[in-house]
């Protein structure tokens, strides 16, 4: 029983982290809390579904969905944020703009895909169950975990091991200085939004497969989980988002298993509020990182 | 009256202020001088509560104030102006000053909403007091003009009026003559002396040494976040350390 819960928490945590990485990346680089991030996640899921319905194999549908939602992220920045950034508008304005963009994207999805819950066709992924002593795990869950971890490692390499990553970190540290050093700040920002959107899209397809329920409103509950995750880890903190994703998934899974299933949603908010009140910089945040 | 004891303020690893101790005596005008970047404004922020010292103590009227929020410090009797004028731009001069009288009002929300006589009487009294301050600072002509429409020198006087409106016993002025012409500066000097005659204590940051000599009873010299000299104006001016500090700063700014 316990080990089964651990397994459930691990693969769920991997997807939570995947979703939250893009969320926190944009905040880390630009100081924007992009509340439209969950809408990219939802669009990614729909695009993945469309590809599958058009007869494409899943291994192609996933990267296509990622590219699409990545481009959507770039477009989102050009339309909703760039003007505000150029004007040096307050945080409040950017936040409101992202809310507007998210309403727009949700309504557009409602129009294009209808408000109904859509599902992947049966058998799109082979149903295979492994039993290891007391623990059962499906091939789908293993694949989701493997793909999530692979994407996260790739992201880590990208940010820590490449020139692009170096430039991104420079822009996050100080865009003005970065520009003086000859770093193409605008391009770095576009790449950041592409990465964030692609990560959200990947999470959308994977969770859409896992729960097999895709709707224009699927971003709502995920948004609140994502916020909890990135606040847990410290806004803008990449490692923190991964840690936060697993903390959240473990608390959720364990409270459902040992307390009551009614408490699952409550867990993330109680966590969120406790962290905000006592450690607003997150578990990994330094006190000097106080952005408030 | 005001006593700073071993005040240190670090930003990151750098100490903007280190181990600063001095006192401001009641009824005197004390000058705070030093080259740019010496930490003068940081010190004013610490005294007025906008910033907290990393270590050290500030006592005002024998009470520790270094952990109080700014509004409490103001209520104890410390008011200030700002180096980069910070008036409420869209409000009129009179409105700015009436905001400064916040702590002299008592009327609550309810009596305002119901327009009770007590509220009306209080509003009348505040306006009369504000009008007197405006007259004292020679701002009658602009009373109803938006604050940002005034000249630099006039805005500085509005800021002083607004600070005085809080009925302070200690007034902190951050470069009050910046942007003023010679005549305005001299008039401001007279005003400060007349305030001193009424037993108001003043701590003033200034670069204009003529002005310092006109108004200050004593001066404290700050360089690189440390006090390098203090005492009577003439004595301090002759101090070789002070001369060095100013010359050094000048060389740096030429470099």
């Amino acid at each position, binding site marked *: 029983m316990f080990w089964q819960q651990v397994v459930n928490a691990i693969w769920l945590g991997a997807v939570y982290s995947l979703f939250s990485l893009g969320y926190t990346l944009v905040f880390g680089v630009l100081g924007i*809390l992009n509340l439209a991030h969950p809408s990219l996640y939802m669009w990614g899921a729909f695009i993945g579904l469309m590809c599958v319905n058009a007869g494409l194999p899943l291994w192609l549908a996933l990267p296509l969905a990622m590219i699409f939602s990545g481009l959507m992220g770039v477009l989102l920045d050009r*339309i909703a944020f760039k*003007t*505000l950034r150029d004007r040096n*508008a*307050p*945080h409040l304005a950017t*936040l*409101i703009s992202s*809310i*507007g963009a998210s*309403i*727009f*994207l*949700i*309504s557009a999805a409602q129009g294009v895909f*209808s408000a109904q819950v859509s599902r992947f066709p049966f058998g799109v992924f082979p149903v295979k169950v492994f039993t290891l002593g007391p623990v059962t795990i499906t091939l789908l869950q293993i694949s989701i975990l493997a793909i999530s971890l692979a994407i996260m490692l790739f992201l880590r390499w990208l940010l820590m091991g490449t020139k692009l990553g170096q430039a991104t970190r420079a822009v996050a540290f100080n865009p003005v200085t970065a520009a003086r050093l000859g770093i193409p700040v605008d391009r770095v920002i576009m790449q950041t939004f592409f990465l964030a959107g692609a990560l959200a899209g990947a999470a959308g397809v994977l969770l859409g497969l896992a729960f097999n329920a895709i709707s224009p409103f699927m971003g*709502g509950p995920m*948004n*609140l989980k994502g916020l*909890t995750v990135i*606040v847990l880890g410290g*806004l803008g903190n990449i490692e923190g988002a991964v840690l936060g994703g697993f903390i959240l998934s473990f608390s959720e899974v364990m409270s459902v298993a040992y307390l009551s299933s*009614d408490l699952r*949603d*409550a867990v993330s*908010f109680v966590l*969120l*509020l406790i962290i*905000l*009140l006592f450690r607003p910089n997150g578990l990994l945040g330094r006190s000097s990182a106080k952005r*408030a | 009256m005001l006593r700073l004891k071993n005040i240190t303020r670090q930003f990151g690893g750098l100490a903007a202020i280190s181990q600063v101790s001095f006192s401001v005596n009641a009824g005197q005008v004390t000058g705070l001088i030093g080259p740019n970047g010496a930490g003068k404004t940081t010190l004013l922020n610490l005294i*007025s*509560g*906008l910033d907290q010292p990393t270590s050290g103590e500030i006592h005002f009227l024998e009470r520790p104030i270094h952990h109080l*929020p*700014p*509004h409490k410090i*103001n209520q104890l009797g410390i008011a200030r102006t700002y180096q980069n004028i*910070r008036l*409420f*731009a*869209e*409000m*009129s*001069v009179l*409105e700015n000053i*009436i*905001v*400064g009288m*916040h*702590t002299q009002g008592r009327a609550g*929300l309810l009596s*305002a*909403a119901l*327009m009770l006589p007590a*509220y009306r009487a209080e509003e009348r009294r505040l306006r009369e007091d504000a009008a007197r301050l405006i007259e004292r600072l020679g701002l009658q002509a602009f009373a*109803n003009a938006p604050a940002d429409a005034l000249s630099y020198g006039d805005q500085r006087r509005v800021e002083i009026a*607004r600070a005085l409106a*809080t009925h302070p016993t200690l007034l902190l002025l951050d470069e009050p003559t910046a942007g003023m012409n010679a005549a305005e500066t001299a008039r401001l000097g007279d005003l400060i002396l007349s305030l001193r005659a009424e037993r108001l204590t003043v701590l003033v940051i200034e670069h204009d040494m003529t002005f310092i000599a006109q108004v200050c009873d004593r001066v404290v010299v700050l360089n690189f976040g440390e006090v390098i000299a203090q005492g009577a104006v003439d004595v301090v001016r002759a101090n070789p350390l002070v001369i060095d500090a100013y010359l050094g700063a000048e060389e740096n700014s030429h470099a």
Partner: protein
Amino acid sequence: MTVFTQFWSTYGSVVQFALINMLLGISIYFTLYTGLLSLANAGFMAVGAYVSAILTIHAGTPLPISLLAGAFSAGFIGWLLGLPVLRLRDVYLAIATLGFGEIVRITAVNFDKFSGLTLLGGAQGLDGIPKLTTPAGLIFSLILLSFFLIQFHRSRAGRALAAIRRDENVAATMGIDVAGYKLLAFVLGAFVAGLAGGFSAHLTRFVGPNDFTFSAAVNILAFAVLGGTAHWAGPLLGAAILTVLPEALRFMGEYRGIVNGLILVLVILYLPRGLFNPKWLTRRKEAGHAQA
């Protein structure tokens, strides 16, 4: 007269919703005016709706008593929430208040189950509330609140908020208790939102836990963003427009929500101070104060 009756039978409910939304516009005006981006107003509305509905149903109290009880409860909860949460700034405050809305929802869903009472109706919500809201009652409250707002801005507290809005630090060194006045604005906003919730419950005859989530909070925010917060009449105008607009856009079907999203983004980008921002008016008003 017949023209009027005909109009009323078609649009009467729209007008009443517009009036309720105007109340909500006032509720968010208090916080936004003070520079606080709070998304808790929908939650406060829920508190007011549930409390007033329960009183009317179970205690048979007359509408004004139910409404006031709802408003005061919301104000009290606002005070409890505001004390810890208002220390947080912009993004963090927005996240915390978002979490609050979710906590209200979870409480509403689970309260009956955990308390053993039948009070809030769980996930199904509470229906069969007597329809007691009248246009006259709504208009009366709006006029009363408008009068209050006019007097408020002339009062000591109103001047303190105006000072905080322009420069928090300077206001503090003028002896103004910034945290205290922010809490006041937060509580006043909660009170008015609670009042609006009560009216809404007694108009639609129903209160459900899902009526007050993120999207409701965002709608309220949109009133103020569209109208602007330079003057209290701004959010009223915004609320009126955004209530009537969807009626005019019925032909757009599923795509209707797109307009709301677009409006938010476009207004923030191109009209950052909102529709209702007559500079001459604020100028003259303040000069007029000085002379009065």
